[in-house]
């Protein structure tokens, strides 16, 4: 019952049109949420009593880190779906996720480094969370390198799916690393089950920024996947008609 509409959207042609339809909505939502979130984070939220104003980089750093983990899981799930059920769209989505995940991981590491210098006095420290986030960066790089090493698109997608699934072991390690080891990096700020250890006025902009990053991710993903699908299906009639129309 649920699967029927999913089957329809899994057709490359339908996905293409869906993407054209949805991307502007996500894009505008991103702009709106970013503006609200940044205003909230930079102006509205009170200065931290320990760190002053330099804590505000949290509004980029934490959502980036969340996104880096989230996108990897998504990439592995899409890859798994493509591998098991041979759904072309899943392969395309997985491949399109990778550069975005890489960017967010890099952003998280860079902003973390910038934050760490005034706080801890050092650009980098080899503690659990930073190291495992670095491993995540390499996993993304490896995934992209592997996909580009194959000539055949479909073989590349399936090989990448296996790599992404194997790398999933790293995700729980990153997520729980701050709990398992008492390290320099601070403990988890937002947890599913406990009350957050952060002031509510600081929390709301954080959540809004997280949402903004998600809508950004959705809009860029749809855009990338759209292009990728055109290349995948370059032989089919609907693509030819589409390109003829635009001439």
């Amino acid at each position: 019952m649920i699967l029927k509409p999913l089957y329809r959207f899994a057709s490359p042609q339908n996905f293409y049109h869906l993407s054209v339809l949805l991307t502007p909505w996500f894009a505008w939502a991103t702009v709106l949420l970013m503006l609200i979130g940044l205003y909230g984070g930079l102006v509205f939220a009170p200065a931290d009593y320990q760190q002053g104003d330099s804590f505000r980089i949290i509004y980029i750093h934490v959502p980036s880190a969340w996104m880096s983990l989230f996108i990897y899981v998504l990439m592995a799930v899409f890859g798994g779906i493509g591998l098991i059920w041979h759904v072309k769209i899943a392969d395309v989505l997985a491949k399109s996720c990778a550069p975005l995940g890489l960017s967010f991981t890099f952003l998280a590491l860079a902003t973390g480094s910038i934050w760490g210098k005034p706080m801890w006095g050092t650009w980098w420290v080899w503690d659990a969370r930073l190291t495992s986030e670095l491993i995540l960066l390499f996993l993304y790089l490896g995934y992209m390198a592997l996909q580009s090493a194959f000539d055949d698109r479909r073989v590349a997608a399936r090989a990448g799916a296996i790599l992404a699934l194997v790398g999933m072991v790293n995700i729980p390690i990153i997520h729980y690393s701050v709990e398992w080891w008492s390290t320099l990096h601070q403990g988890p700020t937002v947890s599913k089950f406990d009350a957050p250890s952060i002031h509510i006025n600081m929390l709301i902009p954080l959540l809004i920024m997280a949402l903004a990053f998600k809508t950004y991710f959705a809009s860029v993903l749809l855009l990338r996947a759209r292009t990728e699908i055109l290349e995948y299906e370059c032989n089919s009639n609907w693509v030819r008609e589409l390109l003829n129309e635009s001439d």
Partner: protein
Amino acid sequence: MNILNKNQQGNPDLDQAAPFFEVRMLECIRQDVILFQDVHFELQAGELLQIDGVNGSGKSSLLRILAGLMQANSGNVCWQGQKISKCRYEYQRQISYIGHLNGVKNTLTALENLQAMGALAGSKSDITLSDALIQLELTGMDDIPLNRMSAGQKRRIALARLLVTKSKVWLLDEPFTSLDASGKSVIERLIVEHCDRGGITIFATHQPMEIEGCAIRHIHLGKK
């Protein structure tokens, strides 16, 4: 009781019934190029099929799909009425596939290679390994490692798989590469005997072929 016996007991028809091959609406796309579409044929016991076409027309890909090494983009291959994707292990135990690559280890001797082939085979034939080498005109080369043999001799060892194992279906990709005239006639004789015994042979070659004692059916890939 091992798992393999259980599977065999579950599907008695797959082993005892006469071989029957059916291929429907097969399509293969490699690197965004459609190699072939709408390929279909049926084969009964004792039949011989030649896949011909120019270089790059997808002959090897078709054979690999028939062997179960590759998956077609659409269509299905049925063995004894069942899709081979459903009965993969039982099916693969009854076929012998010899591709472009020989599938033999160059640092092992001829005999060791034949032993390895037999050890992992679905069912071994009754011929002794030395007799197999004699049939292939490689008498006395039992203990010679393959890296000291010529290309034609290595190809004969690769084709020895057909003698050492007892399979119902032979899938041969350009079997006569590197073989001289006498090697070619040895293989042709083996193919004829195999078809007489009720086996199926499917081979791919771009050369026109004539085999005595066997009617060859043809399927042509690519543009005519």
